[in-house]
């Protein structure tokens, strides 16, 4: 294992910003794994730290295939994490909306350019990312439909689901999109949480990555083979939206099977405690995403269900 600084900026009063990478093996640039890009992505940091620990051990045991290089960058934004802010400390920009970056541009454009310059030539790229709404996910691999995404390859992670979604205008500046444009086979990996550590789904994600790398001949790993992934289009998921705002009382959890008409959650009056609204399952399905904030706004998709037909 070689620890190296991928990118660095000198600060006025704070310690310098260092983006640190961990390199395993020597040879062609085979795999790059990026953890958190936002300051609240603690689970993403945790997963990477555990992965670094595992890869270090595998390397010591001689289980990495010669000729392959693996780079893990646990965080491309330690500055925000240290002050508990989601986006960049000064101008609130999102580094994951700055790719491929610009080395003569603004600070976060420079960070993106510095990082991207170091990671763009890898064959496989994996990023642990997060959703902007508070909630828990069923662990999955997410891919943007850019025209040459490789769904069969994504299934080799053995995660329960591979989710495909159409690109939106803002996607063109994400790391995942730009990796794909630069011919890296890129995958976003979602575990259950963001701001809280969830050890179970973190372990599942690590197994998935090691399985994937083993299938590509990059290392030797004999673990649980994982799932036969189900491929789901984002548009096929059924959102369950609140009509009203209030205290959110979830009844079902991520991964549960639900039947049409089954109560999913209550929205309570925040002062009088009465049930203002009960949300029920509009279809038979499996809970893919569940809101986990104690309050909810109106019009909010607090659950996303995968139907059996999907």
């Amino acid at each position, binding site marked *: 294992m070689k620890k190296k600084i991928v990118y660095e*900026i*000198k*600060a*006025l*009063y704070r310690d310098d910003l260092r983006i640190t990478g961990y390199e395993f093996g020597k040879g062609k640039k085979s795999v790059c794994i990026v953890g958190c890009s936002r300051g609240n992505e603690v689970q993403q940091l945790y997963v990477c730290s555990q992965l670094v620990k595992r890869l270090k051990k595998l390397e010591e045991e001689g289980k990495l295939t010669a000729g392959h290089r693996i780079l893990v960058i646990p965080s491309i934004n330690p500055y925000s994490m240290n002050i508990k802010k*989601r*986006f960049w400390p*000064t*101008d*609130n920009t999102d580094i994951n*909306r700055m790719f491929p970056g610009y080395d*003569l*541009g*603004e*600070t*976060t*454009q*420079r960070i993106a350019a510095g990082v991207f310059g170091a990671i763009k030539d890898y064959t496989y790229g994996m990023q642990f990312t997060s959703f*902007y*709404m508070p909630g828990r996910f069923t662990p999955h691999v997410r891919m943007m439909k850019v025209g040459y995404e490789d769904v069969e390859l994504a299934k080799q992670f053995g995660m329960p689901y591979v989710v495909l979604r159409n690109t*939106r*205008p*803002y996607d*063109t*500046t994400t790391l995942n999109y730009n990796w794909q444009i630069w011919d890296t086979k890129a995958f976003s990996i979602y575990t259950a949480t963001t701001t809280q550590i969830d050890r179970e789904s973190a372990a599942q994600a690590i197994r998935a990555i090691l399985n994937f790398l083993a299938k590509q001949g990059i290392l030797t790993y004999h673990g649980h083979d994982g799932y036969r992934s189900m491929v789901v289009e984002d548009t096929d998921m059924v959102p369950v*939206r609140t009509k*009203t*705002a*209030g*205290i959110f009382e979830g009844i079902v959890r991520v991964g549960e099977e639900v039947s049409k008409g089954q109560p999913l959650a209550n929205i309570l009056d*925040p*002062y009088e405690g009465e049930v203002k609204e009960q949300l029920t399952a509009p279809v038979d399905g499996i809970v893919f995403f569940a809101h986990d904030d104690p*309050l*909810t*706004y*109106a*019009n*909010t*998709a607090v659950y996303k269900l995968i139907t059996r037909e999907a």
Partner: protein
Amino acid sequence: MIKTICSVGLPVDETLEIRKRRITPTGRKGEKKQLKRISVVTGIHGDELEGQYVCFQLARRIKAEKEKLTGIVDLYPAMNPLGIDSITRGIPAFDLDMNRLFPGNRDGDMTEYIAAKIMEDIDGSEVCIDIHASNIFLTEIPQIRINELHKEKLIPLARHTNVDFIWVHGASTVLESTLAHSLNSRGVPTLVVEMGVGMRITRNYCDQLVEGILNLMREMGMWQGETLTPRVPIISENYQDVSYLNASTSGIFVPEVKHWERLKKGDLIGNIIDPLKGQVLDEVIAPVDGILFTIREYPVVDAGSLLGRILRQEALAGSAQEE
């Protein structure tokens, strides 16, 4: 008349309402459906306040000579009321840039729903002015920014608005989700004004734009009152016209020149200093001849922070500024 265009309940004893003020000509009730309408929008970014004074003054000017009004004026001073009232640029709680949500979705999340309702309400306007105030970091000369995709339609309108500068920029996929792009794509000509600085009101810029909006309304047949002859703006359509000054290092930026000042290549624009060590870390030097139309307002800079923009001398040739 004040009308709520969108209303959403918040979790605890509060309703988020987006309101507009409609000013209509007096005594033309039968014709109202045929009247042209101008929408003046501001406050999409909660830390940009220049538009607050523009809305206030525009309404006063129109009310003072209401008989001269021949069109409908819709004023939307607070598109992001939670942001304005909490000194937050984006939509609080979601940390989303509201100007990346358009055209929105009626069946989407709260923020998308609000964006869709705003679009519905402005739709049908003859013209829309979306007033921005840069951000807290940079001061801008009154200018209109136009996506090159819409320049044929928008430059002639922008010329009437009494701004100093019209900047035609390249199309960018990310900007497709702005209010202006969405309205322009839907056939509502929308001009984006950038002027002043975040969290402040620059009265002379606001007054300048109020004159410009009245002049535009006059040109479009919505206002019969007297207006000033508008300034002749510098128009830049070539991306090479603009030279960007980015900080070479982190520090405290102290300018040595004034905003909108003519510069010669080699002039000292300012210093980046380190107060702890008592050192000048870098001298910021003008890389080209031109005029400084953007200047850093907020002193703390990181490596890469924008310190200013210079419109090159070549782009000024033939403009009013040369006279």
